């Protein structure tokens, strides 16, 4: 039986393959960009408030910082307690044109030893976890020097 692929969070990313992007919103009045998306009210305190329209974020950015999780995070993070814990890297990425830093997990197999501050990475589709019916999808950061 094949599982249904469902985003782990709704409306934060979309597109297949090379067209995969994080999705934010932009205020039609002041041009401020928001990720995670703001859909109700522009958070610029000096903006009278415009319409918030969906906008894809830059695909590539540079590492602002990185770390990893050597111990199993608590729920609601989902992991199989029967399997040994496999640490994964977390990367904070600065997107130049949006001047924003976005946190995400690194693609599986990339460890902190592979990373440096300033390194170029790109956003790619990833899998967060799976249950009986559903593959929960997310975004991952991947160094551009690495091919899947």
């Amino acid at each position: 039986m094949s599982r249904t692929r469902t985003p782990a969070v709704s409306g934060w990313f979309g597109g297949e393959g090379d067209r995969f992007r994080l999705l934010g919103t932009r205020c039609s009045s002041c041009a401020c960009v928001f990720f995670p998306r703001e859909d109700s009210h522009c958070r610029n305190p000096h903006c009278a408030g415009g319409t918030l329209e969906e906008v894809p974020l830059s695909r590539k950015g540079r590492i602002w910082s990185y770390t990893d999780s050597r111990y199993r995070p608590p729920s609601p993070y989902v992991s199989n307690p029967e399997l040994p814990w496999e640490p994964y890297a977390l990367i904070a990425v600065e997107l130049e044109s949006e001047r924003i830093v976005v946190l995400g997990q690194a693609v599986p197999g990339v460890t902190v030893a592979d990373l440096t501050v300033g390194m170029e990475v790109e956003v790619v589709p990833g899998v967060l976890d799976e249950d009986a019916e559903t593959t929960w999808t997310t975004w991952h950061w991947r160094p551009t020097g690495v091919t899947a």
Partner: protein
Amino acid sequence: MTAEVAVLGVGMHPWGKWGRSFTEYGTAAALAALMDAGLDWPDVGSVVGADTVRGGYPGYVAGATFARALGWQGARVASVYAACASGAQAIATARAQILAGLADVVLVVGADAAPKGFFRPAGGDRPDDPDWLRFRLLGATNPAYFGLYARRRMAVHGDTLEDFALVKVKNAALGALNPYARYRKRVTAEEVAASAVVADPLRLLDICATSDGGAALVLCSMDFARRHGVARPVRIRAVSTVTPRFPNTLLDLPDIATDSAAAVEPPGETLRASIARTAYEEAGIGPEDLSLAEVYDLSTALELQWYEDLGLCGEGEGAKLLREGATAPGGRIPVNTSGGLASFGEAVPAQAIAQVCEVARQLRDAAGDRQVAGARVGITANQGLFGHGSSVIAVR
């Protein structure tokens, strides 16, 4: 400059993992503070509790919980929550009541009974809650953010793991002298280096634990202190509870992203720097006037960041200041003479109050083996997640 309020009493329940209710720790701290002030509980006109979100309903209404435990006597009550900054908000509330003439004597109490392991969000599926989302989508624990900040400092300022370990060595030596600290053993740099990595590059001994504990203050008007026969009380001269300004460009707990600075230029200072600046302006002093500082060393690396944000040194010079010994006992500006979170472990609602307890003891020349000679001015600094600044300046 704002008018001052007096610190008449300080009290703490020792930090640890005692396995009892937060109410018990808070009540013990309150009674100790009242005894220190030379007052009885019925003398208190108002009680302000710093909430604990892990205590169920009694934790959400901490002020009333402590008032009930001490015996209902009709005092005005308030309960406040601002995560790690809850204690500063409780002090700010008490001060406002005193300065407004609503109460002469206010009891401030915070206490926590911390669970084992990582802090985690409240239960249930809440996809509109950033704190729930960071765990669900990223498994991003608090130490993960501390790891990000530490790595960034290493890349930008050249800080080393040895610098971070030196913070722990300094604070553990002070904690060994503090009867209220949970960890009372000196630690060597080798022991820090040999402890397990939790969130690269930080190790177990770089990161603060979570603890049980309770702290309380009895605050009063300057007139009341004089009438009570205390001619030279410790005085609170500033309480800073500022929020960030848009766009906030430093990745802050529990956020998954910063604000974008594409359309609006960011402010010239970070939230942490604005916390201190606001406190200095309110007190009419500057960093050069300080005798000591208590800062929120959630991690060793974060203590170095606070040196810079408090203006104790220039940006990127925190590790140099530490290596020079300026922030150790006998140095130009001793930091975390209590032993800091490194020696206490965080008891969230109590911690910002405990920082003020330490500063008050130092200013009274009653800090025993930890005493900073001739201490006259102290600052506390702290930051609560979801954008809460916290700083108190006290003088004597």
